[in-house]
C-alpha cells in the first residue's frame, strides 16, 4: 500500500503545473487558483485509492479541481447575495506577475466569459482535452461542448477586437 501511495504522490507532483494552469484559467486570480489546487490535492490524497495506477492521473485530478471550483462558485454566489458586492471589482486582476499587455488582455477577456464557456475553453483549448474527453469529464453531450466552445470563442474574439490593446505578438513591446 505504501508503494502505491508513493507512485501516486510522485506522479501527482508532476501534474501540479497543469492543475495550476487549469485553475488559473478558471479563476483568473493567481492566489485563488493556488487555493483551489490546494483543496483539490487534499481531496485527491484522501481519495487516492480510487485512482487506478497506470490510468490518466492528470485527467482524474483535473476533474477534482473542477468539482472544487464548482463548489467554490456556488459558495461565492451565495455569499454575494448576502453581502455587498464589494468583490466585483477584483475580477480584473492586476496583482502578481504582469505579463505583457497583449497577453493580459486575453486572460482578462477569458475571465469575463460565463463560467460554462470559460470552463470548456480551459479544458479543450488550454488543457488540450478532446471534445469527447471534455464531454465525458463535464458529463454533457458533445454537441453542448461544441456550441459552448463556439460561443465562448466568438465572444473572446469580439472582446479582443473591440477593447483590447493590440493583439499579442509574443514578446515585443512597442
Amino acid at each position, binding site marked *: 500500500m505504501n508503494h502505491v501511495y508513493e507512485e501516486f504522490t510522485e506522479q501527482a507532483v508532476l501534474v*501540479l503545473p497543469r492543475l495550476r494552469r487549469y485553475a488559473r484559467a478558471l479563476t483568473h486570480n493567481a492566489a485563488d487558483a493556488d487555493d483551489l489546487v490546494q483543496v483539490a*490535492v487534499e481531496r485527491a490524497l484522501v481519495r487516492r485509492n480510487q485512482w487506478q495506477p497506470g490510468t490518466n492521473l492528470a485527467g482524474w485530478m483535473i476533474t477534482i479541481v473542477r468539482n472544487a471550483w464548482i463548489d*467554490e462558485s456556488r*459558495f461565492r454566489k451565495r455569499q454575494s447575495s448576502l453581502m455587498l458586492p464589494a468583490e466585483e471589482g477584483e475580477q480584473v486582476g492586476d496583482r502578481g506577475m504582469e*505579463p505583457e499587455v497583449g497577453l493580459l488582455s486575453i486572460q482578462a477577456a477569458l475571465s469575463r466569459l460565463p463560467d460554462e464557456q470559460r470552463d470548456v475553453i480551459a479544458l479543450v*483549448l*488550454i488543457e488540450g482535452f478532446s471534445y469527447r474527453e471534455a464531454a465525458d469529464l463535464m458529463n454533457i453531450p458533445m454537441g453542448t461542448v461544441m456550441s459552448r466552445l463556439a460561443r465562448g470563442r466568438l465572444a473572446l474574439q469580439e472582446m479582443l477586437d473591440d477593447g483590447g490593446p493590440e493583439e499579442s505578438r509574443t514578446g515585443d513591446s512597442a
Partner: protein
Amino acid sequence: MIVSDQDLMAYVDGELDPVRHEALSLAIERDAGLAARVAAAQELRRNLRAAFDVTLHEPVPDKLTALLTAGRDKKTKRPDSWRFTRSSAWASAFALAAGVVFGAWLGPVLMTHRTGPGATQMAPGRVATGSDLYRALSEQLASAPAKAIRMELSFRSKEGTYCRVFASTVQADTVTGLACRDAEGWRVDAMQSVAQGANQSADYRQAGSSMPSVIMALAESRMEGDALDADAEASARANGWIPASNTH
C-alpha cells in the same frame, strides 16, 4: 461553401473526420473569407495557449508540493502532510462547537437550522428511506460521474460500520456530510453547509477554499485504515454496506 462556426472551430481543433477535414482544407484554398476566419481562430488558439504557458512553467509554490512530499519524507503510513493542521481529536470537538449542523434529512429537502459561529448541536438525523440521498448512499459509487449528490469517499469506521462522505447541492448550497450505515439504515452524523464554513475563524479555513475540512477531519478521525478503493466500495455496496460477519 458556407461553414458554420462550430465546424470551422472543429477543423482548427483537429476534430473533424478526415473526409470533412480534407474538404474544408480545399475550400480554404479557394475562399479568402473562409481562410481569414480560420486564421483568426488559429491565432486565438495560439494566444490562449501562450497566455497560460506562463503559469505552466512557473515554479510550483512550496506549499503545494509539500502536500505531496512531506508525508513521504516522514515515512508514515498515512501522511501528516494532508492532515488538517489540528489533531483529529481536536477536530471532533471543534466540529460540534463550530457550526456543524445536525439536521433531519426529509426526502430531497434538507432541513437545517442556520446559525452563526458557535452553533448549537442538534440530534443526528436519519436519512429518509426512499429519498435521493438514501438512494445515493446505498447505490452510488465515489467513482460515478458528478450529479447533484456526490459521494466523496467511503471507509470502515473504527466501530466496524461503513461510513461515507457525501456532498450535495441542495437549494443552491453545497452541503457536505458524513453518514454511517447501521441496522436501521443510514444515519447522518455530521453535516455542514459551505456557507457556514465561511463563518469559521480564518486560521481554520483557508480563504477561497470551500471544502469543509471539519467533515474530512471527522472522517479521518473515525477511519480504520485507508478510504476504500473502487473494488472495496463495490464489494461493500454488494453487501448492502453491512460488514460481513466473521463467521460465514
